């Protein structure tokens, strides 16, 4: 056995120096103590055992981590004693310790991890040294394992949050391949997760809406900006399409390359149905206003006719004779009254003819004239007059007349209400209180664009700035509670959208100005 000065080997050699140690000492030349010093200074807890599992050297870091008493750090200490000490510390049971001791010579490489009584987690890695013996590295894994555990807990929480969502969550690659779906998505589509993963995200869209959604995704949007879209989806009940409102966030990597989309979708079918129902009610309310006006118009000649007839009878009764000239005048007046009533009924019939003919072509100028005639007298009672600035004619629009008239009636009613409301505001100017309400209506054929523009402007004080972005939402109103449902402008918006048109609003000339663009009908329609 080689004897060299350097490492402070014990006098009683109860171990064999591994060859690797010998080589290291040799490499240190005349100063092998350097090897020991370097070993002792290592922050990595480590110990070296000879081929008979007797301790050759244990650095202070290992002694501290394993809480080895001095007696167990002495060269020659059998690994068996160290294992038993660890068992005593609660690393494992005594039986386990015995099993490990029996197993010592069976495996060349050992990887194990245990937790002590004090909660610290120690990882042990034992590898053979070249030429015999073993090196054992110990690592305190406590903080790493705690961090991993916290991370796992976070992941579990995150997963639970995502899975428990009522919203449908989908992630998909730029080529449309689905990479993640949550439970709500699987339940909504009635398809297992495995089937959805890897499939095309457009499969989740109603066939009639796929083109629009595909176009929407072709422009991915700016990083981290959420865009929203509504489309239909086929529900597994097969009864009807459901409406989904989706919010999509494009996800880019550090090199600004689009890597994924994250979509959160919500079933808004019931909400849409409720809105449609509200719009139907709102349309009936608008219809009710028209009917009330027409009823009043009808009542005038009706009353005159009734009075004329009764006067004729009363004349005969009071005078005791028949004055033929008087009776003739009464009958002539009666005919005029009846014809006037017939005109009003015909007018109403024209106005209320059903919509739904998608190939219809409506004359906007004629629609403006009809609608203003219908409401002119009613508005006159509120001292509101129309200022029509109309061309002689314009190209017909792709709409049924009732749709244009619905838009106009609601815009006119909104304008009239604003004017009347302005007069009643405390502190309203004398001009506002006594001045005449004016609704300007302009129609312009926007050649060469294929649109007709309708402008409706009032002098009712305008719309509060904070309301302008929401003015076309349902139930938004500046009217007092109970005096309006706030559906008129929402109906205007929906009707214009259905016609493929657009509209905007801004305040101008002491009031609100609504501009509506309706596409002209294709020639031949």
């Amino acid at each position: 056995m080689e004897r060299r000065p350097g490492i402070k080997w014990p006098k009683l050699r109860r171990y064999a120096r591994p060859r690797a140690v010998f080589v290291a000492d040799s490499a240190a030349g005349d100063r092998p103590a350097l090897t020991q010093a370097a070993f002792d200074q290592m922050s990595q807890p480590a110990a070296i055992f000879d081929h008979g599992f007797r301790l050759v050297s244990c650095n202070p870091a290992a002694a501290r981590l394993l809480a080895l008493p001095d007696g167990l750090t002495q060269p020659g200490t059998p690994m068996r004693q160290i294992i038993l000490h660890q068992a005593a510390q609660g690393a494992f049971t005594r039986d386990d310790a015995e099993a490990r001791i029996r197993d010592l010579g069976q495996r060349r490489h050992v990887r194990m991890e245990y937790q002590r009584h004090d909660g610290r987690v120690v990882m042990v890695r034992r590898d053979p040294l070249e030429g015999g013996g073993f090196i054992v590295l110990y690592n305190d894994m406590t903080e790493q394992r705690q961090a991993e555990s916290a991370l796992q807990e976070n992941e579990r929480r995150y997963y639970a949050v995502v899975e428990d969502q009522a919203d449908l969550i989908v992630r998909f690659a730029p080529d449309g391949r689905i990479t993640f779906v949550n439970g709500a998505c699987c339940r909504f589509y009635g398809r297992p997760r495995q089937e959805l993963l890897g499939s095309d995200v457009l499969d989740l869209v109603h066939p009639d809406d796929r083109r629009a959604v595909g176009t929407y995704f072709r422009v991915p949007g700016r990083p981290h900006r959420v865009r929203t879209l509504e489309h239909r989806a086929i529900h597994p009940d097969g009864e009807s399409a459901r409406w989904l409102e989706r919010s999509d966030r494009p996800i880019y990597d550090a090199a600004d390359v689009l890597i994924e989309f994250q979509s959160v979708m919500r079933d808004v079918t019931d909400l849409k149905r409720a809105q449609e129902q509200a719009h139907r009610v709102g349309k009936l309310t608008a219809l009710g206003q028209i009917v009330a006006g027409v009823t009043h118009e009808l009542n005038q000649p009706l009353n005159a006719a009734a009075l004329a007839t009764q006067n004729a009878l009363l004349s005969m009764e009071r005078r005791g004779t028949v004055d033929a000239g008087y009776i003739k005048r009464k009958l002539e007046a009666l005919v005029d009254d009846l014809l006037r009533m017939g005109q009003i009924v015909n007018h109403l019939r024209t106005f209320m003819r059903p919509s739904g003919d998608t190939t219809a072509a409506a004359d906007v100028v004629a629609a403006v004239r009809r609608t203003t005639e219908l409401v002119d007298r009613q508005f006159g009672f509120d001292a509101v007059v129309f200022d029509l600035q109309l061309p002689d004619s314009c190209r017909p629009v792709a709409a049924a007349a009732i749709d244009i008239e619905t838009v106009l009636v609601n815009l006119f009613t909104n304008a009239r209400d604003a004017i009347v409301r302005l007069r009643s505001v405390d502190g309203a100017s004398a001009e506002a209180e006594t001045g005449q309400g004016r609704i300007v209506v302009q129609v312009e054929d926007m050649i060469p664009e294929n649109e007709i523009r309708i402008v409706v402007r009032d002098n009712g004080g305008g719309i509060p700035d904070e309301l302008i972005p929401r003015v076309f939402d349902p139930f938004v109103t500046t009217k007092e509670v109970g005096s309006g449902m706030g559906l008129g402008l929402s109906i205007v918006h929906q009707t214009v959208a259905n016609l493929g048109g657009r509209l905007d609003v801004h305040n101008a000339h002491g009031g609100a100005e609504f501009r509506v663009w309706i596409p002209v009908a294709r020639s031949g329609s």
Partner: protein
Amino acid sequence: MNAVERLYGDDPDILLVEDDPRQCAEFEDFFQLIGVSYRIATDGPTAMRFLETSLPRIVLMDIRLPGASGIEVSKAILRRAERPVVLLMSGHTESVFEAHQSAGRAFRVIEKPIDLRVLAKFIDDVLSRPYHPGNGSGDVADIP
């Protein structure tokens, strides 16, 4: 002749407030047939100006009028110490029900189209009673 009778010396029996010429013409025929005196105003402000200097026994008035509604004119009349009986004509009485109640049922409402037999009886009832200042409607029966 007492003061009230003097006051009534040149005042018409009826002030008609109606903006529709056809109906005005028929009411004129009717008033002439039943032999009552009348004046006609075609809007609310004109009616109110007329009432500042005259005191008819009855104001027969349409509810929807240019300038001021029949209900507004009625309320102005009710604030006066001496006032006529007010009879409003409406195509739909529901809309005036609330105003009618809030004014202490101080005016009457008759529905269009008007039954002239009912109106004639009402006029006769009012004109046959003595005038009571501040109680224009007096104990006049409701319009059936």
